[in-house]
């Protein structure tokens, strides 16, 4: 019985460590997806000049939660800016991001669609620069902290198990 409890505690420790590491890798994935969508948006604005609602409907098959939700709300008849706000409120992935990264994404939706093509491209490019920094930071965090979290989780579990014994 005691051995089973010890194993369970060690496993729990490992899981907590892995979960923390996953959060970091999820953040990298999310930011990378946003950057990819920014690049697609820039190309579509530069070459197609389609309005935002149509652009977002084209980006519907993206892995990004906010972009998909935004497309869904637009499809339901919301205008772009309201759809973006609602998508941010309803998104799960936003919790993986730091405050400055969230602000960049909120800004993206708030500022898009209010100026000419040149203005739009510079807004997206500015947000993309912020996301680039965030991406580098996230990758760095994943490399440095990811392993630490896994090891700490395992060691923490073992320590708790030892204390129990």
């Amino acid at each position: 019985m005691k051995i089973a409890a010890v194993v369970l505690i060690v496993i729990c420790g490992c899981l907590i460590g892995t979960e923390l590491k996953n959060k970091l890798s999820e953040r990298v994935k999310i930011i990378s997806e946003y950057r990819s969508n920014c690049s697609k948006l820039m190309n579509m604005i530069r070459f197609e000049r389609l309005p935002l609602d149509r652009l977002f409907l084209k980006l519907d098959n993206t892995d990004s939660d906010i972009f998909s939700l935004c497309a869904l709300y637009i499809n339901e008849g919301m205008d772009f800016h309201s759809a973006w706000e609602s998508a941010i409120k309803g998104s799960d992935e936003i919790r993986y991001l730091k405050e400055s990264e969230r602000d960049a994404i909120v800004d993206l939706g708030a500022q898009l669609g209010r100026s000419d093509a040149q203005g739009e491209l510079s807004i997206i490019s500015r947000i993309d620069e912020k996301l680039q920094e965030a991406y580098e930071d996230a990758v760095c965090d994943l490399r440095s902290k990811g392993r630490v979290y896994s090891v700490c989780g395992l060691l923490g579990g073992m320590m708790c198990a030892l204390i129990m014994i």
Partner: protein
Amino acid sequence: MAIRFDEALLEMGKDIAGLYNAVPEADRLQAQEIRLRSGSPPSITDSNGISISYGSRNVSVYEIESAFVSLCGHSVYSHTEELKNGYLTVKGGHRAGFGCRAVYDNDGLLSIREISSINLRIAREIIGCSNQLAEKLFYDGLCGVLIVGAPSSGKTTILRDIARYISESGSKVTICDERGEIAAVCDGVSQFRLGRCCDVLTGFSKAQAVLRAVRCLSPRAVVCDEIGNDEEADTLCDALNAGVEVIASVHAANEKEFLCRTQCLKMLMTGAFEKVVFLPRSYKDKEQIKIMKAGDLIENCSSCADSYMRMPNRYGA
């Protein structure tokens, strides 16, 4: 029309639509324009051209800005060229004009900013409104027609209905809809009834659209709105030489104003138009619609008679 009023109003966003809650149904039916001016109460223009204000609350600059972004479908960049030309056609064919400040660079007008007022003209569709007129115009076959009228006299409504009339009678017609007002195509579907033989070229300049229509769509008639400059007049000559009839509109309140405009005379002299229709100020006075033969009109104008007679055109000189 009340439905069209509500539809047009919603294009400015729900908040702005709320400002017009007090407009009675009768006024909604009569409204020709929805007007927003910063620092003034929201207003409409009725069918007699009289402005009526509602409420005492003044519209703020922020509200104007929000209505502008909403009219642009929250994508100002996708309407840059239209905005440079001073208008914007929204879903349903309603046309918005703006009071604003121009931004120039070395290449000319770059964009507009500081929107201070918005005028949204409600597009009307009166199916069959041109039936009698079309029967008089085309009793001996299709011919080139120039429709002349003052702003808000119903030129576009008549043009659209003439296109429908020709199309439903089985002749191929192409609408060259530079501003998206005549056919108001949205997602590939016209918002108006245009008959079974109608093709629409949206967004092309008139010159390009007419050439494209003649080359690829083999129409019997080409319909276009508000022609005026020299390039457009030259294109009409090309269309004429390709055996296509041109039905177009032009701004002028009456015969005198029309004849004073050199561009109008030039258009007549191309020979593209056999008949000229003068619309009264209001469509309500449709009994006052006047049809004249282009040849008679030019001969009335002594100053241009000589040059007209020297022009080789379909009336032959």
